[in-house]
């Protein structure tokens, strides 16, 4: 699959990727290497894996990392109670010890965790290793081993090899620096905040009913907001929330009052509201700039009798 196809397929699923990202995905798929995606929160790192699974029409297997995650939780576990029960029930049978052992330690009694599941899946699935920076270093080393060999050894059964390498997407929020070894094993992509045009495209792709003027205003304000010294800069998820909120309030454009009323959709830390208030002049300038070009084509406030959210194609 080449980069252009990836872009259109992702686009069909309301996910906008730029050329560089599509190329990185293309290479990751072709070289069968894991793709490490880093970037600020809320730019669609996890979503990428979900959409990729849809595009490839395969399963998404997700391994959510957290502090204290160990190999057993990620790989496999024996279903002990079931094994015990079976051992007790088969005591009276005439089977030899070896037969009973083989029965108890068969795949039926194996609880597959995400990594083993990804290896044994018949079609190569998309394996999402989410927030790998939250797991500790020991787990990272273990992960390296699995990513390199694609095989798992279970003492009682033997070695299970992957028939197809899963497509691996690894995401990181940079809570801690990842080891050089893991970085070397992966392809790397830094997913930044979207540009103005990309954000407008994302808003339209996700919310088809959104008026053009509102989308332009939201995207312009987001650019301004992300440039402010906020504690928690808003991601794409926030702008989608915001657009949805404004649509529900039947607004077809954003004014200063509406902006202040709905700021809670975007800024989630109290101190950030103070920052936004301090930069109110810049932000309201962004409101004006974005609305000006679409003014003639869009609905005007004085002629728009409360039908602001009803949007029609205006070209």
């Amino acid at each position: 699959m080449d980069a252009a196809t990836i872009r259109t397929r992702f686009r069909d699923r309301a996910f906008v990727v730029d050329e560089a990202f599509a190329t990185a995905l293309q290479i990751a798929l072709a070289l069968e290497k894991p793709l490490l995606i880093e970037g600020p929160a809320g730019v669609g790192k996890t979503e990428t894996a979900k959409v990729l699974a849809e595009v490839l029409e395969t399963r998404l297997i997700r391994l959510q990392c957290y502090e204290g995650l160990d190999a057993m939780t990620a790989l496999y576990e024996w279903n002990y109670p079931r094994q015990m029960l079976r051992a007790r029930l088969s005591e009276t049978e005439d089977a030899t010890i070896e037969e009973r052992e083989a029965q108890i330690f068969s795949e039926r009694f194996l609880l597959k965790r995400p990594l083993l599941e990804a290896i044994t899946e018949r079609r190569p699935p998309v394996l999402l290793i989410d927030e790998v920076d939250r797991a500790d270093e020991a787990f990272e080393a273990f992960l390296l081993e699995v990513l390199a060999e694609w095989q798992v050894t279970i003492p009682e059964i033997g070695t299970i090899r992957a028939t197809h390498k899963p497509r691996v997407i690894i995401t990181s929020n940079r809570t801690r620096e990842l080891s050089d070894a893991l970085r070397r094993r992966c392809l790397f992509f830094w997913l930044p905040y979207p540009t103005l045009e990309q954000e407008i495209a994302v808003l339209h792709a996700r919310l088809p009913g959104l008026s053009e003027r509102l989308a332009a205003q939201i995207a312009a304000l987001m650019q301004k907001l992300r440039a402010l010294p906020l504690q928690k800069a808003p991601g794409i998820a926030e702008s989608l929330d915001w657009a949805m909120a404004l649509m529900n309030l039947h607004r077809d454009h954003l004014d200063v009052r509406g902006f202040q009323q709905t700021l809670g959709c975007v800024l989630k830390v109290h101190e950030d509201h103070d920052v936004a208030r301090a930069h109110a002049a810049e932000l309201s300038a962004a409101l004006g700039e974005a609305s000006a070009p679409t003014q003639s084509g869009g609905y005007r406030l004085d002629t728009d009798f409360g039908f602001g959210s009803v949007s029609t194609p205006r070209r």
Partner: protein
Amino acid sequence: MHPFGSLPENLADFCAVLRRDHAFHIGAGELLDAARALEIVDLSDERSVRAALRAVLTGSRDDAAVFDAAFDRYFFQRQAIEQEQTTPVQRELEPGPGEEGEDAPSRQRSDASAAELEDALGNGSGPMAPLETNEQDGQDRFVARASYSPAEVETSQTPDVSEIDEAWIAAARALVRRVQLGPSRRWRPAATGRRFDLRRTIRASLQTGGEAQAPRWLARPRRQPRFIVLVDGSRSMGQHAGTALKVASALARATPRVEAFTFSTSLARVTTDVRRASTGKPRRFQPLASAWGGGTAIGACLADFLRRFGERLLAGNAVVIVASDGLDVGEPETLRASMRTLRRRCGALVWLNPLLETPGYEPTALGMSAARPHVTTFVSVNDLAGFVRLSRSVRFRS
């Protein structure tokens, strides 16, 4: 044109430049991947070639920025220089590392695409336009390319983290041990513990025919502290900054949970460099080039740290070590506010002030007196003895 006729050779040479001048870790495996990636993408499109190589050859965001600059320099600038001197070389295709076992049609295709690439590069005017006017100083430019290397900047301007010996590591271990944190909330299997582990006991009983004979136990492991070292890189700190980085490197040997930053007029994360230094690998203190030798805006930099990394790094288990002489050019109020927030969000706030050993020094400078009330441990670490003293005196609120 390019120094070598064929694409694989140019690629190998480009990788060698990255390895030599920018300390990239590029082995045969990466080179092979890069060659395979170039077979996949459209070679006539500079952006996709760049994106492909960037994905394969870089491993972090900082690397990516260095890569982009190096890519421009290698593929556009050098070509502009050599174009004037030599006639286009008759290129012949030789099988490179990525082309073995490849069938003929696609080889022709990649050859054709490579020619397109060369043409595209040759006719491209954007990046080359300013260079064509002064092609005489090609040799100088070549030198300038080398001096772009962050590794070289480091040798001339930034302090040297000299060899970390056992005594430093021992002191670092003592410091890590000294920070006593309570047990974590998580139960872990242990030889002796407080809670009976039914699941593992049953598992073990399978070995003895279903009769449980050896009980298994769970215990709570201790919580691990995290060390965050913030080093003042202003000129007034001089070689003391090197000592502070050495403290960070020694800590990195003792525990994996170390993060290091430098600041002067802006903040830069140097954790990777400190880790490399701690294992004796080549160091790339890249961000220091801009952060080194200016005045210090301690308050603003700490506020920047809180904003960008506070949420992710600071918690009750964090020991924040600030190494600075407290000579702040910013507003004392900013520093006071940052220190107050920092203290609230970490377990211990250590301030290493190299001037403290100077006879008659009182921390009365505006910045220092603003920060002092929020500091839990206030010492100087100028040598090993100071570090050992720190490891004995640090106090922790757990």
